[in-house]
């Protein structure tokens, strides 16, 4: 497939507006602002079948159409709080092609009639935030932002807000609370942000990669976009390959590419010629797949049919020497650190799961620990305000279900079935 989202990333100074415009950049924005009505833009994106790349896969154009016709300001927010373990695609776009994202933001803002847009960028991306502000300045100098853009009567400002190291702020309602200058606590939906979001006004939150698709849809049409990928998951996709593969990295391919092909052809197969053991297909919050389950296509519906999720397409590959109990413990530490503390089941349950997994991997597991873990999972699942609870439960439940023998062995023999020396992930090997 011809590269679409990553076509410029190897070009020198690809973050500069002049380079972006040489390859057709801002043609879509000029066309939208001069020739199209907001409704036409929404319809075009709806027709393209573009689904949100942040993880949920909700159709972007449909989301935009939920913005009510009320006399309130509307806001567009670009979610650049990339923090799902295994995901590192948005950083690539932010660093190498910020203008593609900014053009997408401008078009989306126009479509929902927003005059202010925000980029909420994770706090650690400090250099990328600087780059982004420079890019915004370049846009202003060209007359693509500000008051009365290209004499159209349309006004738009884009502001960059940095997060400060809270995973939960990737969840859209938490993100908006944080954007309002508060603790990043999620809110119950409904009301959905499209109706009541930032400062109680209609707000659309879209992922970086989703917005980067938008200028291409305007330029080439929805049918072109639909010709890439599968019927229900259209367009190009950035797949992030990490863990035990020879060539980890971001690969741009159509939606629905076979998972096995991604791992063995694009990412070069398993490191040290070892055997593949398990794959997390869509970031750490998605249920793990065993080697025997990876003959699936990477689109929203196929991965869901296999009992997991495409999520952010953060594919974490684990070889035969991986201690799955220890891998599960590692992720439980992550979730225990990141729970926002608002809902009791999550605040109490997630760190408790970490404690139990910690003692199992230390050879002090107790006979009923696995039942206890599964019981805690049940008490968290679907009992929290936001999907974080379910996300924290997914690894524990799926690892126990699929690698039960490793958990049982740890408890019975006080050591790992896989790495007989010590804890594989924390050991100095």
């Amino acid at each position: 497939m011809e590269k679409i989202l990553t076509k410029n990333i190897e070009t020198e100074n690809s973050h500069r507006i002049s380079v972006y415009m040489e390859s057709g950049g801002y043609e879509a924005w000029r066309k939208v602002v001069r020739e199209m009505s907001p409704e036409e833009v929404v319809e075009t994106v709806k027709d393209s079948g573009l689904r949100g790349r942040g993880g949920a896969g909700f159709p972007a154009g449909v989301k935009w159409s939920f913005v009510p016709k009320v006399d309130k300001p509307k806001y567009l927010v670009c979610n650049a709080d990339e923090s799902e373990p295994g995901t590192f695609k948005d950083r690539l776009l932010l660093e190498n092609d910020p203008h593609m994202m900014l053009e997408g933001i401008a078009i989306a803002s126009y479509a929902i009639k927003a005059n202010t847009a925000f980029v909420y960028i994770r706090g650690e991306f400090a250099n990328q935030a600087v780059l982004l502000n420079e890019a915004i300045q370049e846009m202003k100098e060209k007359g693509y932002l500000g008051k009365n853009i290209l004499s159209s009567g349309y006004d738009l400002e884009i502001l960059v807000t940095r997060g400060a190291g809270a995973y939960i702020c990737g969840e859209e309602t938490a993100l908006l609370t944080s954007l309002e200058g508060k603790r990043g606590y999620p809110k119950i939906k409904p009301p959905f942000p499209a109706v009541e979001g930032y400062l109680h006004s209609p707000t659309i939150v879209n992922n970086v990669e989703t917005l980067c698709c938008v200028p291409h849809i305007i330029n080439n049409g929805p049918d072109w976009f639909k010709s890439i990928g599968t019927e229900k998951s259209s367009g190009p996709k950035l797949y992030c390959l990490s863990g035990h593969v020879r060539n980890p990295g971001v690969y741009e391919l159509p939606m629905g590419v076979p998972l096995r092909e991604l791992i063995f052809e694009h990412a070069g197969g398993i490191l040290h010629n070892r055997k593949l053991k398990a794959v997390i297909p869509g970031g750490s919050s998605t249920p793990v797949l065993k080697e025997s389950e990876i003959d699936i296509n990477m689109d929203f519906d196929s991965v869901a049919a296999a009992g997991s999720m495409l999520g952010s397409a953060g594919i974490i590959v684990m070889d035969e020497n991986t201690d799955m109990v220890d891998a599960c413990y590692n992720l439980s530490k992550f979730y225990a650190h990141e729970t926002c503390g608002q809902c009791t089941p999550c605040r109490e349950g997630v760190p408790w799961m970490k404690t139990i997994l910690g003692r199992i991997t230390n050879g002090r597991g107790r006979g009923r620990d696995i039942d206890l873990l599964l019981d805690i999972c049940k008490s968290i699942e679907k009992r929290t305000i936001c999907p974080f609870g379910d996300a924290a439960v997914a690894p524990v439940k799926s690892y126990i279900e699929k690698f039960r023998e490793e958990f049982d062995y740890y408890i019975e023999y006080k050591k790992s079935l896989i790495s007989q020396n010590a804890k594989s992930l924390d050991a100095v090997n």
Partner: protein
Amino acid sequence: MPDTFSTEAKAELKKLMDSYPDRMSAVMNALHLTQREFGYISYEALEALSKEMDLPVQQLEDTASFYTMYFKEPVGENVIWVCHTLPCALRGSANVFEYLKDKLEIDAGETTNDNRFTLMKAECLASCGSAPMMQVNDDYFEDLTEEKIDKILGKFY
């Protein structure tokens, strides 16, 4: 440590507040700016910010205390964050951390005697394709080896 904002920082704060639809929305960026000015988010720093932004200090503290990147205590001149979440762990982040720990003779959360480095363990930094990695101040250092780490740290002496 300064006990007030510099004139330049005050102007920057003013600009921030003016750019957002409401003043509270400038808080996240304002706290980063406060940390840059004061080194960490002390109560005194929050009081100074409260005065500049005309927001209750309790409100600012409520926000600041939620986020790990706003330091509540003084840190060294350079802060090293070693990512230890699964994708990095699979590629040997434990070795990176142990190497740094031995080299700097400090554990996670500690600062070297010369105040040059603070060592931290970080949750996923979105650099899984170039694991193991660490962040030093604002910069990412990827595909780490012991030789690379020596070279990187050398730049800070």
